[in-house]
C-alpha cells in the first residue's frame, strides 16, 4: 500500500475537501492532515525502497505486463517525497494567504495536482502516465481560473490551447507505440523495443512521445504556454505549479530515454542537447527582459529546463545523475523563490520591480533568505545549484561538448544578471512610494508563510552544504536504471 499512498491519500483528501464545501476550517484541517499523511507515506516509501530496492505493485493483482504497474525506484521515491514536502509546505503557506482566500476549489485542486504528480513519478505504464498527465492538466486549469478574473481566464485559455497539442500528441504517440509493440508496460516496452525488427522503426514514434513531453516540460520553442500564464497564479499555487509541473515532464523524458527506449539514435540525443542549449539561453533572455518578479522566475523555469535536458542529452550515468540532482535542487529552489516572491509582494505591495523597493531595510531576514535561494539558482558554491551545474558541466566537458558546457556557464552569468536585478531593485533601491521606515510598517507578513520559506531555505542550505549523501544517492539511483550506453 505504500506505493498507492502517494496517489490515493491526496485523491481521497481532494474528494473530502471538495465535499466539505461549507466548512472552511474543517477543509483546511483535512487538507493539512492529508498533506501530513502524504508526507509520512512518502517517507515510508523512500525507506522501503532504500531497504528493499525497487518497489512494484501490479494493480488488481493481475500479472504483468497485462495489468497496470506502479513502481518506485530510488529516483522516483525521492521525487515523490519531494512532491509531498512541497505540497505540505505550500498548503501550510497558503493557509491564510490573502491572494488565495475564499476559494473552495483550491484545496481539492491542489490535492488533485499532488495525486497526479505522485502518480506520474510512480507510473510504469505508458497509457496510465497519459491519464495522470490529463488529471494534472485539468487540476492546473482549475487552479488558474480560481481567481475568476479576466486575466486568469485568459491565462487558462492560453495554457490550455497550447498544452492540449502536447496532450493529443502524447495520446497519439502512446497509441502508435502500442500499435507497434503491442505493449504499454515500461519493462515490456523495453524488451519489445530491443527486438531487432522494431529497434530501427520504433524511434519514429518515440520521438513524437518525447516531443509531447518536451512541450509539457517547456523546451524551446514549445514553452510559450508557460510564461503566458504562470504569473497569473496566486503565489502559493504558483510555487507548487512552477516548482513541480515542468519537472514532471523532464522526469518522464529521463525515465523514457534512460529506462524504456534506451536504443534511441545518437543523433537525436545530439539534437536534444542543442535544444537544451537553446532552451537555456532563450529562457534566461526572457527573464532578463522582465521586471515582474513572477515573470522573471517563470522564464527562469524554462532556462533551468535547459540544464535538466542537457544532462539527459549527455546520455551517460553521470549526466543522468547530474540531471537528477539538479531536479531535486531546482524543485526546492524554484518553489521557494516563488514563495519568497509572495512575501515580497506582501511586504512591498507590488510584483513589478519598478513599483517596489526598500525590502533590504524593511525585511533584512527575507533578504537573506532570498539571497540564499537566488545564489542557489545562479549556481554559486556552496549552494545546491552549484553541485548540479558542476556535475553537468564536468560531464559535458568530459564528453567534449565544450559549447554545451560553455553555454551552461554563460547562462549562469545571465541568471546572475536577473537575480541581481531583483536584489538591487527590490531589496536595495528605496521604495518609490514609501520611505524606508514606512515600508517596514506596511504589512505584517504572515508568520506561517515566513516559517515555511525559512524551512525550505534550510533544506536548500543543507543540500548545499552537505551534498555528498545526495550526490551519492542520485548516482546510485540513476545507475540503477540508466544502462551503460556504451554497450549499446
Amino acid at each position, binding site marked *: 500500500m505504500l506505493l498507492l499512498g502517494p496517489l490515493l491519500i491526496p485523491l481521497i483528501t481532494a474528494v473530502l475537501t471538495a465535499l466539505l464545501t461549507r466548512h472552511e476550517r474543517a477543509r483546511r484541517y483535512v487538507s493539512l492532515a492529508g498533506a501530513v499523511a502524504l508526507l509520512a507515506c512518502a517517507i515510508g516509501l523512500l525507506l522501503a525502497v532504500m531497504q528493499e530496492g525497487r518497489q512494484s505493485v501490479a494493480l488488481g493483482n493481475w500479472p504483468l505486463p497485462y495489468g497496470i504497474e506502479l513502481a518506485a525506484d530510488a529516483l522516483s521515491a525521492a521525487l515523490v517525497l519531494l512532491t509531498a514536502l512541497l505540497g505540505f509546505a505550500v498548503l501550510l503557506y497558503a493557509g491564510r494567504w490573502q491572494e488565495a482566500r475564499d476559494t473552495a476549489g483550491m484545496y481539492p485542486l491542489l490535492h488533485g495536482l499532488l495525486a497526479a504528480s505522485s502518480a506520474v513519478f510512480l507510473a510504469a505504464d505508458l*497509457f496510465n502516465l497519459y*491519464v495522470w498527465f*490529463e488529471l494534472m*492538466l*485539468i487540476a492546473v*486549469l482549475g487552479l488558474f*481560473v480560481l481567481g475568476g*478574473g*479576466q*486575466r*486568469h*481566464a*485568459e*491565462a*487558462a*485559455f*492560453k495554457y*490550455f*490551447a497550447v498544452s*492540449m*497539442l502536447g496532450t*493529443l500528441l502524447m*495520446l*497519439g504517440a*502512446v*497509441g*502508435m507505440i*502500442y*500499435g*507497434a509493440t503491442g505493449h504499454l508496460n515500461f519493462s515490456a516496452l523495453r524488451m519489445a523495443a530491443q527486438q531487432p525488427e522494431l529497434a530501427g522503426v520504433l524511434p519514429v514514434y518515440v520521438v513524437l512521445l518525447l516531443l509531447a513531453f518536451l512541450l509539457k516540460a517547456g523546451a524551446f520553442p514549445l514553452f510559450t504556454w508557460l510564461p*503566458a*500564464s504562470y*504569473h*497569473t497564479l496566486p503565489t502559493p499555487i504558483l510555487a507548487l505549479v512552477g516548482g513541480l509541473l515542468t519537472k514532471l515532464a523532464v522526469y518522464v523524458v529521463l525515465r523514457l530515454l534512460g529506462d524504456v527506449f534506451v536504443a534511441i539514435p545518437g543523433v537525436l540525443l545530439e539534437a536534444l542537447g542543442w535544444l537544451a542549449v537553446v532552451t537555456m539561453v532563450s529562457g534566461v533572455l526572457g527573464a532578463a*527582459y*522582465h*521586471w*515582474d518578479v513572477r*515573470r522573471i522566475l517563470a522564464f527562469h523555469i524554462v532556462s533551468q529546463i535547459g540544464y535538466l535536458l542537457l544532462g539527459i542529452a549527455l546520455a551517460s550515468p553521470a549526466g543522468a545523475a547530474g540531471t537528477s540532482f539538479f531536479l531535486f535542487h531546482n524543485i526546492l529552489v524554484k518553489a521557494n523563490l516563488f514563495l519568497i516572491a509572495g512575501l515580497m509582494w506582501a511586504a512591498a505591495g507590488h*510584483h*513589478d520591480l*519598478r*513599483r517596489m523597493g526598500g525590502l533590504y531595510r524593511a525585511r533584512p531576514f527575507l533578504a537573506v533568505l532570498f539571497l540564499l535561494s537566488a545564489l542557489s539558482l545562479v549556481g554559486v558554491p556552496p549552494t545546491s545549484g552549484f553541485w548540479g551545474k558542476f556535475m553537468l558541466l564536468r560531464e559535458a566537458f568530459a564528453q567534449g561538448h565544450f559549447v554545451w558546457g560553455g553555454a551552461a556557464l554563460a547562462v549562469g552569468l545571465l541568471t546572475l544578471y536577473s537575480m541581481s536585478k531583483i536584489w538591487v531593485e527590490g531589496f536595495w533601491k528605496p521604495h518609490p512610494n514609501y520611505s524606508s521606515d514606512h515600508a517596514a510598517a506596511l504589512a505584517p507578513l504572515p508568520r506561517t508563510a515566513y516559517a515555511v520559506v525559512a524551512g525550505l531555505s534550510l533544506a536548500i542550505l543543507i543540500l548545499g552544504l552537505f551534498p555528498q549523501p545526495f550526490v551519492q544517492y542520485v548516482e546510485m539511483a540513476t545507475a540503477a536504471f540508466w544502462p551503460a550506453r556504451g554497450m549499446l
Partner: protein
Amino acid sequence: MSLILMLAISIAVAAGVLLVLSRDVFRLIVGLAVLGSATNLIVFAAARPGGLIPAVIEAGATQLPAAAANPLPQALVLTAIVIGFALLCFALVLGAYLVRQGGQQNVDRLAAAEPAATDPVKPPVLEQ
C-alpha cells in the same frame, strides 16, 4: 489498416489544425475537439482493426475468438473519449466566459495577462 481510414484521419487532422489556427475562440476550441477525435481514431487504428466481431465472449464460449477485435485499444479509446469530453466541456465554458467577461472573440487580443509593450525595451507593468 485500411487506406480509407488513414486518409480520413489525416484529413480530419488537417481540418483540425486549420480550425486550431483560427483567430476565433470558438473555432479554436472546436478545432481541438476535432483533433481530439482524430487522435482517438489514431489510437483505435493503431491496433489495425478490420473485423466486425466485437470483443464480447459469446454465451457458451470461455474466451474470445481469435477473429474478435482487439479489446485493449477500445478500452484506451474509451478512456480517452471520456477525458477528452470532460476537457471539451471545460474548454467550452472557459471560452464562453472569456467572450462574455472580456467581450473578446479574437484569440489574438487576449491581453489582460500579457499586455502589449509600449516602452522600447521594458515590459509593461502588470497591475496585479
